């Protein structure tokens, strides 16, 4: 089984303490957990609803628990993980507020990454009267799993309104850090935050 490395992996790994206990929500084939195990000696579990993802995770030697994130994290005790990660899954979730609350209940910190809807190419397509299709949003409006797209500015406001303490925020384009006009030039945003 070949593992794919997504562009947010190294940033996330940099935010995970050595030997940390992590919970990866929507872990897919377990690539991120395998990466964190290799690079940080991290351990923990992935949660995945899809049969193919569960099978692939098991094949990759990852602890995976088949479960629907939309029904919460009832199987996990309060503050039982160092980091709870939601990598490029946020935009496909229905109950975002509840899920983020659950992440901060079971974990000391939350790490969330999502495609930035504010990227200039998305704005341009909307201006031209079309739903955006791009490398980071590769779906057509009629077949997209994404139900809650947001921009960097939106997520900043989301955290501010809930008084979440954003410890770090990195915005990437083609895997490289964007420091100027991140909400305009960045395609992928990664946040690390906790309750204040």
């Amino acid at each position, binding site marked *: 089984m070949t593992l794919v490395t997504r562009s947010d992996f190294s940033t996330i790994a940099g935010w995970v303490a050595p030997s940390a*206990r992590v919970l990866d929500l929507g872990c897919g084939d377990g690539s991120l957990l395998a990466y964190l195990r290799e690079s940080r000696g991290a*351990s923990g*579990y992935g949660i995945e609803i899809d*049969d193919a993802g*569960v*099978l692939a*995770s*098991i*094949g*990759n*030697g*990852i*602890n*995976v*628990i*088949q*479960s629907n994130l939309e029904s919460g994290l009832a*199987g*996990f*005790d309060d503050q*039982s993980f160092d980091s709870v990660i939601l990598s490029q899954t946020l935009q496909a979730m229905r109950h975002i507020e509840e899920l983020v609350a659950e992440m901060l209940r079971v974990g000391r910190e939350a790490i969330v990454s999502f495609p930035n809807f504010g990227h200039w190419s998305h704005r341009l397509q909307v201006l031209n009267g079309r739903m955006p299709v791009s490398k980071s949003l590769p779906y057509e409006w009629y077949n997209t799993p994404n139900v809650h797209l947001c921009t960097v500015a939106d997520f900043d406001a989301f955290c501010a309104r809930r008084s979440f303490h954003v410890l770090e925020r990195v915005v990437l384009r083609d895997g490289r850090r964007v420091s100027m006009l991140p909400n305009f030039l960045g395609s992928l945003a990664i946040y690390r935050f906790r309750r204040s």
Partner: protein
Amino acid sequence: MSKAPRSVGIVEAQRAVFDEPLALSSGATLPQFELMYETYGRLNADRSNAILVCHALNASHHVAGVYAGRPDSEGWWDNMIGPGKPVDTERFFVIGVNNIGSCFGSTGPMSVNPATGQPWGSDFPIVTVEDWVDGQARLADRLGIERFAAVMGGSLGGMQALAWATRYPDRIANALAIAAAPNLSAQNIAFNEVARAAIMTDPDFHEGHFYAQGVKPVRGLRVARMIGHITYISDEQMGEKFGRQLREGIKYSFDPEFEIESYLRYQGEKFSEYFDANTYLRITKALDYFDPARATGGDLAKALAPAKARFLVISFTTDWRFSPARAREIVKALVDNRRDVSYAEIAAPFGHDAFLLDTPQYHAIVRSYLERAVA
């Protein structure tokens, strides 16, 4: 690529005799006992590739393959175990064992009580899952297996895998608990009690000493099996398979008219021919008693704390007898202990019986887990 899966072929049962007494949970002691077992595949040089398969209520040590001259005698988990199958006997040395108290050759109620020279009958002690596991550990000693690569089972067999993990934490690398629960619910115990009542009120039961009378409480056994069967399949599956179909139309009689009636009668009939009533009583009791958290004030996490194995827990969506919710209790207790555990919830319409069937995702998960975990 692995070769196409095939049968382990012709197999032979073996018998192991143990002369050291076995202390039982009830306080009773078995002065000596015998276990029937079968093995498939080859034990490797460092004896690290053994997998123990634990059976559920009505099965035996005959897990895979067929007996010579009896092509219809396929083992009960033949779809799972064999060369190229999910439990690949080209890699693993697989052991099927018949538990104490059963009626397929291991010491049980039909065996002769050395103290009386008569069959034990209802004097045979009540045994528990833990007693079975202790007996299996003796067999492992006998076969020179210090540590199992895996102990696996479905239903009551999954409970044995759990008991292995906590009772002999250093002797098991992986535990596969399939369609299992951390204990039976009241509803489950109730079904077992109805089955036992059917057997014990059969006039041919004779307080369990029916062997000497030359009779068998077959009517009770039939009803017990009919009850069991209803709970092993899902309402959905039963509806799909039988619906309200009639065999020959309404006749205003008590003969079996609906297909489901005739199916249940057939299953009951078949079962009563080969199964022993005293065994049925004991195995259902072992199910009822199993509750590792009883010793820890109901705290399952605490009960599973001694376990060191990696776990694979599998449940089936339509299994209402050992539901996914019960399997998730096991998973939570293991997560609380920071144990390595994976959990798969298989979408299958077959109810509890799904653990015996070959739903592709289910078999792929077991195959993949064993390939990876026992590399």
